[in-house]
């Protein structure tokens, strides 16, 4: 039975027995190629669920919405929500559990292992096929994808199409799940922080010019924040328009809110926003790469998070999302934390 069939069978069982409220998974998107998030609420819906290399989305993001919906409901349905999670996504669940944002019984995790492969980057795919129509993509052994295009099947080495994060992924299997399909293959990338190291080798001034150009382009659409499963605050410190107000909030109170970062999208404000985002994700980001995928301007925001992931690993030997019980990175310390930079 293929992984997709196993997911469908499990989803159908869950929905038939009423164990879960609904199943969040993937189905074929309107373009006939890429996957789109899908909420299966009936056993019949479960038949639409798919699993293939275009299932890039991190569906854990919908846990946040579910939590909000439940908070507003008069008579909330306390059954868990089932989510299809890849390795990276499962670590996101772990971080949310660690932070007590959700309880373990609020979610039912349908784990799906990427095994030795990963998901395909749609931009790389478009680039590789130079705009020709691609009709389907599936895994072809360990190191290749089989891509159907214009009636032909072409085998492409996996490294050419895999998303950047998958090339640096250190655990392609779900670390937490209630149901698992696929093998727990251990992946050992040669350079888990290769892309960051390449940037670190650049001279400081060159790096500054790079980031000034990249961050300067940001239009502050906040897509990276919206898609992030870790950004769950109701009020965001970098964005004054979502401060909670009610009819009793006086004009004075509204005016007294500190505007750390203004709404304009000039370089300084953008740096402020991206720095805060990176710091708030330090020790929490599990590198699902969604922020970079959704960026309409292709700003490599993932690097900032990856850099702090690397720093957390090297300085404090901390891996995000592997342990739901331990203390989080910035809520803990050790007596022998490095402090050579301090005078």
């Amino acid at each position, binding site marked *: 039975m293929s992984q997709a069939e196993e997911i469908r069978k499990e989803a159908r069982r869950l929905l038939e027995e009423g164990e879960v409220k609904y199943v969040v998974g993937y189905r074929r998107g309107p373009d006939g190629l890429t996957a789109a998030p899908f909420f299966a609420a009936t056993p019949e819906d479960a038949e639409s669920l798919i699993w293939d290399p275009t299932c890039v989305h991190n569906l854990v993001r919908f846990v946040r919405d579910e939590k909000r919906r439940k908070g507003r409901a008069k008579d909330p349905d306390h059954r868990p929500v089932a989510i299809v999670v890849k390795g990276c996504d499962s670590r996101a669940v772990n971080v949310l559990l660690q932070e007590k944002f959700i309880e373990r019984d609020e979610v039912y995790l349908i784990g799906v292992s990427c095994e030795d492969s990963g998901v395909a980057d749609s931009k790389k795919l478009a680039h590789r096929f130079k705009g020709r129509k691609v009709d389907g993509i599936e895994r072809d052994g360990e190191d290749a994808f089989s891509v159907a295009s214009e009636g032909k099947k072409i085998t492409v080495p996996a490294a050419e199409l895999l998303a950047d994060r998958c090339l640096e992924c250190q655990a392609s299997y779900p670390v937490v799940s209630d149901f698992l399909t696929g093998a727990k293959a251990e992946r050992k990338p040669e350079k888990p922080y290769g892309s960051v190291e390449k940037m670190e080798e650049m001279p400081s001034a060159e790096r500054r010019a790079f980031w000034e150009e990249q961050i300067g382009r940001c239009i502050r659409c906040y897509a990276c924040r919206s898609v992030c499963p870790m950004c769950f605050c109701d009020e965001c410190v970098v964005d004054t328009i979502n401060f909670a107000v009610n009819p009793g909030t006086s004009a004075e109170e509204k005016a007294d809110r500190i505007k*750390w970062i203004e709404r304009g999208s000039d370089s300084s404000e953008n740096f*402020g926003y991206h720095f805060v985002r990176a710091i708030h994700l330090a020790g929490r980001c599990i590198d699902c790469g969604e922020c970079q995928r959704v960026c309409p301007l292709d700003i490599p925001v993932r690097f900032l998070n990856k850099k702090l992931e690397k720093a957390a690993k090297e300085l404090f030997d901390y891996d995000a999302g592997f342990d739901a019980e331990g203390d989080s990175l910035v809520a803990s310390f050790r007596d022998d934390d490095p402090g050579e930079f301090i005078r």
Partner: protein
Amino acid sequence: MAENFEPKIVAFLCKWCSSAGSDLAGVSRLQYPANVVPITVMCSGSVSPLYIFSAFRKGADGVLVSGCHPGDCHYIKGNYYARRRISLVKELLEFSGLEPERFQMSWVSAAEGKKYTEVISDFVDALKPLGPQQMLRREA
């Protein structure tokens, strides 16, 4: 230009040690450069990364965070949290291309007025050749 440039340093000093240390430097009439804008905070652990980014964005050429020596924190462990968090901020700022000299951290106890003056003089000396910080500065 470099000789005439007077850098502006924003220093977040913890109330119990570093701020008292800077006071001691003052009452002992020790000479040190007047480039510092000291801001007393209750603990180095209370310095949010936002304060640091904000200082840079509002025109600081250098930012200093100073607290009690490890083990001396008035709140027992605030400076340990600070050390962890601030080192991440430092990594991030350097990765984005800010000169590493522009952001420093120090442990200054209430008895180390002398050390405080040394930290500040060295900081000013390190900043002078760099010129004004433009990367994060808000356009006026």
